[in-house]
């Protein structure tokens, strides 16, 4: 059983090999900065407790990082990676969750998933998501209790549930027929904000009318972030804005988000309707994209360079696989959202994907940037 020779002069670590601190620091802080608007929106619509959750996860992550760096005698990696991990963990938490849960999630992410394997760059599973999944399965009731955003009118009938959660319940209740998700939610009493109605009407009248179709109300809320969900995942708009920055600065590349989006959207469109009872080719893509943390997952979590394949081909396979898994879990499994599990499952397959998508000249691969 090979244990790697620490006394050998040459060791080959897997890419990325070099962590020039300035470069890493810039990337980490940029991503954190880009995520902050979405996180702030979460605090705005969900209340002050959400802020405490975010604060706790970040502090726990930083403390965990400090302790581990001390124990392992690494030069202090104050490179912003711990803050970013903490922020990501916090953003995937339900807003009303008891504070010990994000603390455990952060500590698990930093200590178990990151440092036990050797620190930044050595882990093979996404730390923030692994932390989230760990606490999800450990304290499931607390992790599936949601808060209505302050921007939506009161609706006691559906308090505590998320949109996808309601639909999952509906699926088992009505024996597999919920029809169009938005209509199902309206019937269940799920409220729509006045902003949504206003924007939808405006769009229908001025833009879409010319193109010959109209959209029902209810899409704008998920896009803007007026829906229950994890603290940082609800505002698709702010997250997408951030994505533009990341792409422009080449912090993330297009392959994974594109393939993830494509496979998920395609499967949703073709088979999603069949599952919900509206027939083949009748799936509601927009709804699925803007709920359940898909945007956050596809653009920010699934693109982590350390835990994803090295080559373009590999990345496309990875994204495609994540899309398939998210579709399966969301539409057929017990877990309502699926994104976190899909991504960490694909992390498991990444070394295998790398094995079979090796570039021709080993060691002289073109790299991703």
């Amino acid at each position: 059983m090979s244990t790697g020779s620490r006394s050998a002069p040459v060791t080959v670590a897997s890419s990325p090999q070099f962590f020039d601190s300035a470069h890493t620091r810039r990337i980490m802080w940029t991503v954190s900065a880009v995520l902050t608007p979405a996180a702030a929106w979460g605090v705005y619509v969900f209340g002050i407790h959400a802020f405490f959750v975010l604060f706790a996860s970040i502090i726990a992550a930083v403390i965990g990082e400090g302790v581990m760096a001390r124990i392992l005698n690494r030069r202090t990696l104050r490179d912003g990676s711990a803050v970013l991990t903490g922020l990501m963990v916090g953003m995937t938490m339900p807003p009303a969750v008891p504070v010990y849960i994000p603390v455990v999630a952060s500590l698990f992410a930093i200590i178990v998933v990151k440092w036990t394997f050797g620190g930044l760059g050595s882990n093979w599973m996404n730390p923030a998501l692994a932390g989230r999944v760990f606490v999800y399965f450990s304290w499931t009731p607390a992790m599936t209790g949601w808060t209505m955003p302050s921007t939506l009118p009161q609706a006691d009938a559906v308090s505590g549930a998320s949109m996808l959660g309601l639909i999952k319940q509906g699926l088992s209740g009505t024996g597999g027929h919920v029809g169009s998700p938005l209509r199902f939610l309206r019937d269940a009493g799920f409220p729509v904000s006045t902003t949504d109605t206003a924007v939808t009407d405006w769009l229908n009248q001025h833009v879409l009318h010319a193109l010959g179709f109209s959209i029902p109300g209810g899409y704008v809320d998920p896009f803007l972030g007026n829906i229950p969900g994890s603290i940082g995942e609800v505002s698709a708009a702010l997250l997408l804005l951030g994505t533009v920055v990341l792409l422009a600065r080449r912090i993330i590349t297009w392959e994974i988000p594109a393939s993830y989006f494509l496979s998920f959207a395609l499967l949703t469109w073709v088979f999603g309707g069949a599952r919900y009872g509206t027939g083949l080719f009748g799936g509601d893509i927009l709804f699925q994209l803007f709920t359940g943390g898909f945007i956050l997952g596809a653009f920010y979590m699934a693109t982590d360079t350390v835990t994803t394949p090295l080559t373009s081909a590999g990345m496309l396979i990875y994204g495609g696989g994540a899309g398939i898994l998210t579709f399966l879990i969301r539409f057929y499994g017990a877990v309502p959202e699926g994104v976190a599990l899909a991504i960490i499952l694909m992390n498991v397959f990444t070394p295998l994907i790398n094995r079979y998508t090796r570039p021709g000249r080993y060691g002289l691969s073109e790299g991703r940037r």
Partner: protein
Amino acid sequence: MSYAGIILTFVFVNNFVLTRFLGLCPVISNSDRLDHALGLGAAVTFIMSLASLGSWLLFHIVLQPLGIEFLQTVTFVLISAGLVQLTSHLVSRFVPVLERFVGSYFSLITTNCAVLGITLIAVRSDYNAGESLVAGISAGAGFVLALLLVSTLREKLDHEWVPEPFRGTPIAFISMGLMAMAFMAFDRALLVNLVG
């Protein structure tokens, strides 16, 4: 359960290695090279399928009618050991080419928890003959999947800066723990909704 259900159960929902802890010994000791892993996986799957069917036959044709079900442990183990001997003998006799790939693994399989495990599970789950066979093949496939994943993972970990106390077995276990956690995505509900 339908055949599709059995396959999905043994490969994903109740993966032998990641959920039931069977077949860990060979996974931990043999997973550091991919080609070894594949050879072992093929041999194990083959034996598991035969053993599963064979034990089922033995149980329903001999043990149950005679009321000596309690002998299942002893007889199933002997069947598996016998099958391994027979197969390895046949391989070296008729297909010597294969010997190079799978020969050395047969001794390992004789005492493999996975093989005995599937025979016991198949009998205790009240499967019929066909279902037993499919269960054996699927469990083997699940084993191969786990083995593949762990092996590629460990190849990668060999190049990383894993802290000294964790190198080797500990980090393998911890990795498998994370894998097992990820595999929890495949739950009973998924199975039922997908294949009914």
